[in-house]
């Protein structure tokens, strides 16, 4: 049993990182460039391979062959540590996210631990160290400002991030992310619990605070991953690139990949918490209309197809959210620093806090 567990876990980890996350990161960069181009009435990268699809490979080769320059004035140890710290938390967080039901009886989650979301917050907030250390170790004015901004921004938005998910767990009563998905399969997705149960007034009522919670959480994720309109730590125009100004070659690429990996992880968590994870209800007419739950429990090839379908559903949802990230990035301008702080402390924090009480009130009313 233990040998089987270790083997499958290793396979899942390797598959997740090398088959899913890293290619997804590189193609997210490509997609970002293509989407930005299309939004700005341009074509975007279309030279390398068919429709520019080999562009990420060319980019990676370029990054590997560039000179890895270390400025003389930096603190060497922390300068080397920072890019790793930017990349590692982003990838580590994905471990607790259930990215599929089961495949051949193996649950499609790397670590199904009972502290789920707490683990996510604990690791995700380590991401700030990469940026702060990069800013500080560079021993240069602009990276330092970027690092300082980043730490204050992340701390401010972590509060609303944490408070925004409490309503979800008030409903589920459990921090384990597989249970969150299980609850959503039984009771409808968090964002729209009334689907398929149209007459239930309580669920309509619950949808309102859930949508608010989703908005606050998503915006906090934007701030956590330093995406526009909250990309103050790397504001190109005022900070000349911010915390990664002094970095070159693969170390710079690690910051870049870390940002996109954090985006993917953030999207995966949003999907798990609010959009039913790997669950996609299919309408079925066998013995009257009902929603069919496809998962990997069916025997034989049907189970395998079901499991693969769940995984595909999950990553399709993640991709849709990634598109939202890009869409927002190429629409909205950057906030001013005081506006950012005001928004975090005076609006989102309060909204998330009040939201918890609303959900608690509704739950006391309907349960």
């Amino acid at each position, binding site marked *: 049993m233990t040998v089987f567990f270790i083997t499958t876990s290793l396979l899942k980890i390797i598959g997740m990182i090398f088959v899913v996350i890293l290619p997804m990161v590189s193609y997210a960069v490509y997609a970002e460039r293509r*989407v930005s*181009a*299309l*939004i*700005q*009435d*341009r*074509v975007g990268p*279309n030279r390398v391979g068919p429709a520019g699809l080999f562009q990420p490979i060319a980019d990676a080769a370029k990054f590997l062959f560039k000179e890895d320059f270390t400025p003389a004035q930096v603190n060497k140890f922390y300068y080397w540590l920072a890019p790793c710290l930017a990349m590692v938390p982003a990838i580590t967080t994905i471990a607790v996210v259930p990215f599929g039901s089961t495949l051949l009886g193996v649950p499609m989650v790397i670590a199904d631990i009972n502290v789920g979301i707490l683990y996510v917050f604990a690791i995700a907030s380590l991401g700030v160290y990469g940026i702060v250390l990069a800013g500080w170790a560079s021993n240069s004015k602009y990276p330092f400002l970027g690092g300082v901004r980043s730490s204050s921004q992340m701390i401010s938005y972590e509060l609303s991030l944490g408070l925004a998910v409490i309503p979800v767990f008030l409903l589920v009563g459990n921090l384990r992310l597989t249970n969150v998905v299980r609850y959503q399969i039984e009771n409808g997705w968090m964002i729209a619990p009334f689907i398929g149960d149209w007459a239930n007034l309580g669920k309509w009522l619950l949808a309102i605070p859930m949508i608010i919670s989703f908005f606050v959480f998503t915006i906090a994720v934007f701030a956590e991953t330093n995406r526009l309109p909250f990309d103050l730590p790397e504001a190109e125009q005022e900070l000349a690139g911010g915390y990664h100004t002094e970095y070159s070659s693969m170390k710079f690429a690690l910051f870049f990949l870390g940002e996109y990996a954090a985006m993917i992880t953030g999207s995966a968590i949003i999907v798990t918490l609010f959009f039913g994870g790997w669950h996609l209800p299919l309408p079925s007419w066998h013995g009257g209309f009902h929603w069919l739950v496809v998962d990997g429990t069916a025997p034989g090839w049907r189970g395998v197809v079901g499991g693969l379908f769940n995984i595909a559903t999950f990553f399709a949802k993640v991709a849709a959210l990634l598109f939202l990230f890009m*869409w*927002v990035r*190429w*629409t*909205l301008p950057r906030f001013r620093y005081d506006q950012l702080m005001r928004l975090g402390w005076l609006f989102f924090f309060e909204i998330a806090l009040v939201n918890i009480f609303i959900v608690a009130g509704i739950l006391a009313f309907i349960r």
Partner: protein
Amino acid sequence: MAIIVPRPKLNWRERLYLPAIAAGMMITIKHLKNTIFGRTKVTMQYPEEKWDNSLPEHYRGAPALVRDTDDRVRCVACQLCEFICPPRAIKIIPGEIPSTDRFAKVEKYPEEFDIDMVRCIFCGMCEEVCPEQAIFLRKDYAITGFTREEMVHHKDKLLEIGGVMHGVVLKWNEKK
């Protein structure tokens, strides 16, 4: 003197920002949709699509030497173009035409005629100054090479680009 910038008074809908954000998002998605469905004009995809057929008549591309209808290189090696050339891209070594030749009275011909295309600025002064109408700016614009030596157009290359020019100057034709 201080200038007081009046701040516009925003109503609650504008202060909420959300309608403005939604409107902005709709604008960008409209642009994305139009570009995907080819309703927006985008840049010409250069190596695949070319502008060659719509180049205007006065287009100034690479300079070239021409032959006349008697297969004679029109250039008489007067070196006016070499003199006028602002970046000094032209180098001519004149040679003498032997007295037995049909065109002996022309006296000189360019033994070597080099144009350094790294230096050439496509100004067209050589074409303008040439008394023999022997040098023209053609429509070739993609002048490339891996070394500086490759970028020098020698006489053969210049004649190859130029080809044969009909009419205009006929003064060396003894029948006229």
